[in-house]
């Protein structure tokens, strides 16, 4: 297919359609709305289902119902809307039906703002809905990757009967880049053997997340965990840059990782031994890769567009073997490459504190900058 200039939200929508999406249910919310609008135009053209729900609560439950029929179905939203979907996501996880969700993350907490953020990391990766389940979470850093991961999301959702969430910060949704869309995937003619589509010539099927006998629920919990272990073995994804001889390793995902790459490239060309690990699957998280880095590098700097939510996962993998530092922007602010460059240069010249609290150290460093900015106003 030819490369086109595409907006991230539109690109993800069209990628989903070409991946065989048969039904979309959503609710308008910035900075995700163009995705819903694209679906509103394209899905009926193709004779497929588009419906604007009365709320994100309803949207995810419509997705739940449609997923029970064994088709490819998705929704999309942004942070506050995704919070409302957590109930439905837990039910979907408990019923073991495949669903794809795109979260175009914005600044928070609360109403926050509509600027790009990665503040949903904990909500998406570590939690949200009640009960024991894990979604697969994929974080793109470009429009092309957003397309590719959206297509992958449907395959993984079906393969593991799992929720797959594409977590794109607002900038991925809003920016335009040249990218290539996949060819149109034919729609399936057969449906899975668990799908509820009417008991025509067969025994009835029931899809439910209720297991009233705790012994039965524990069996399901075990099955979900076994599947999660399998996902952990097979579906860890990341990109690495200049890691072979890196003393300083930056770890950042999505846009924060992409911004860091500019700084890493510049510093590397100046002879600083710095590399970048950009996790693509935030869940399952590349723990083993980071453990490997901790055995070879001297320092890790985690950079995120939040208060250090992924930082905790990096610390879990590093387990104190090398110092870990943090640099983040919050509230819808994005880091510029020169901010990361300054951090790299600081780490290249200073000896890091081995047992420091990376979040507090960052707050002290960054607070000075922030106050300095204020006094200049």
């Amino acid at each position, binding site marked *: 297919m030819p490369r086109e200039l595409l907006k991230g939200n539109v690109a993800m929508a069209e990628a989903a359609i070409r991946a065989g999406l048969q039904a979309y249910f959503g609710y308008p919310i910035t900075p995700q709305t163009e995705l819903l609008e694209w679906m509103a135009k394209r899905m009926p053209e193709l004779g497929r289902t588009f*419906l604007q729900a009365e709320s994100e609560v*309803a949207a995810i439950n419509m997705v739940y119902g449609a997923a029970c029929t064994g088709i490819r179905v998705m929704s999309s939203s942004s942070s506050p809307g995704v919070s409302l979907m957590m*109930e439905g996501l837990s039910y979907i996880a408990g019923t073991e039906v495949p669903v794809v969700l795109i979260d175009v993350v914005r600044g928070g907490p609360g109403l926050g703002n509509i600027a790009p953020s990665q503040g949903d990391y904990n909500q998406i990766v570590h939690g949200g809905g009640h009960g024991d389940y894990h979604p697969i979470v994929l974080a793109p850093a470009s429009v092309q990757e957003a397309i590719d991961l959206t297509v992958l999301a449907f395959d993984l959702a079906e393969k593991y009967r799992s929720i797959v969430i594409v977590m794109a910060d607002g900038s991925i949704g809003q920016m335009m880049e040249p990218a290539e869309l996949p060819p149109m995937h034919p729609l399936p003619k057969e449906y899975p053997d668990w799908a509820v589509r*009417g*008991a025509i010539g067969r025994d*009835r*099927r029931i899809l*439910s997340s209720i297991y009233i006998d705790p012994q039965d629920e524990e069996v399901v919990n075990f099955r979900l965990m076994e599947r999660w272990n399998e996902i952990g073995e097979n579906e860890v994804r990341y990109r690495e840059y200049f890691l072979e001889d890196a003393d300083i390793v930056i770890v950042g995902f999505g846009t924060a990782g992409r911004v860091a790459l500019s700084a890493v490239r510049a510093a590397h060309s100046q002879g600083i031994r710095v590399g970048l690990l950009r996790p693509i699957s935030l869940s399952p998280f590349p723990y083993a890769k980071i453990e490997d880095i901790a055995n070879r590098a001297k320092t890790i700097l985690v950079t995120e567009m939040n208060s250090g939510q992924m930082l905790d996962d990096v610390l879990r993998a590093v387990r104190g073997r090398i110092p870990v530092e943090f640099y983040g922007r919050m509230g819808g602010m994005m880091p510029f490459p020169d901010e990361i460059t300054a951090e790299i240069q600081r780490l290249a010249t200073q000896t890091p504190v081995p047992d420091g609290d990376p979040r507090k150290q960052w707050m002290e460093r960054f607070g000075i900058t922030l106050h300095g900015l204020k006094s200049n106003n």
Partner: protein
Amino acid sequence: MVSTAPFETVYQRPESLTDFPTHYCPGCTHGIAHRLIAEVLDEMGLRENTIGVAPVGCAVFAYNYFDCDFVEAAHGRAPAMATGIKRVLPDRTVFTYQGDGDLASIGMAEIIHAAARGENITVIFINNAIYGMTGGQMAPTTLPGQKTTSSPNGRDVEQMGFPIRMAEILCTLDGAGYVVRRSLHDPKNIRLAKKAIRLAFEAQQRGLGFSLVELLSTCPTNWGMTPLESLHWVEQHMVPFYPLEDFKVSPTLAGLRVR
């Protein structure tokens, strides 16, 4: 003298109803409502074509009793889940079965918007004026003065607000094709309830939009009554407050004669 004529079957379990032992309390009218739905599905030949959506509440296990495909929704979300199914499979018959807490409290947005969209589904709404499964708390349909575990001195409308008449609200929406209220407190009304359920499914078959049958029902356990007392209570207290009327009947159905 013993007759040698062959026996004639005059009453049997509908095909659409499984022989799963009931979990409902003695005297509860859920079983009657289930049977009426199953009879209608049998008579219309819809069993294999039907997908049911169970609620949260006493009927959370409704899927055990119907011999058709079923899904189990989150509390109040059955109309949204049914929407998802029906939009993907428009030629299937989709119905939800919901209680008053599920439909008129936590699921108010979902039911209103399903009706407003003219979602071509059938909703069987069990109104027993109380939360049954959680043990007898105040429902949105609890009558003024009615004692429940969360209104132990009786529902004080000044403080707790007023009961909601759902059928009257839903019939105002253009997307609704059939909205009626019936009661399950005596044989005559049960027969009328069955006709209404039949017409609701007929409405869906004809693509007339949203159809709902509200059924006044008993909860002897949580009302603290015998089954017989609870049937009388429906007649004496609920029917005057929740009138048994046809609130909206699409003209297409008006001339239809059903058993």
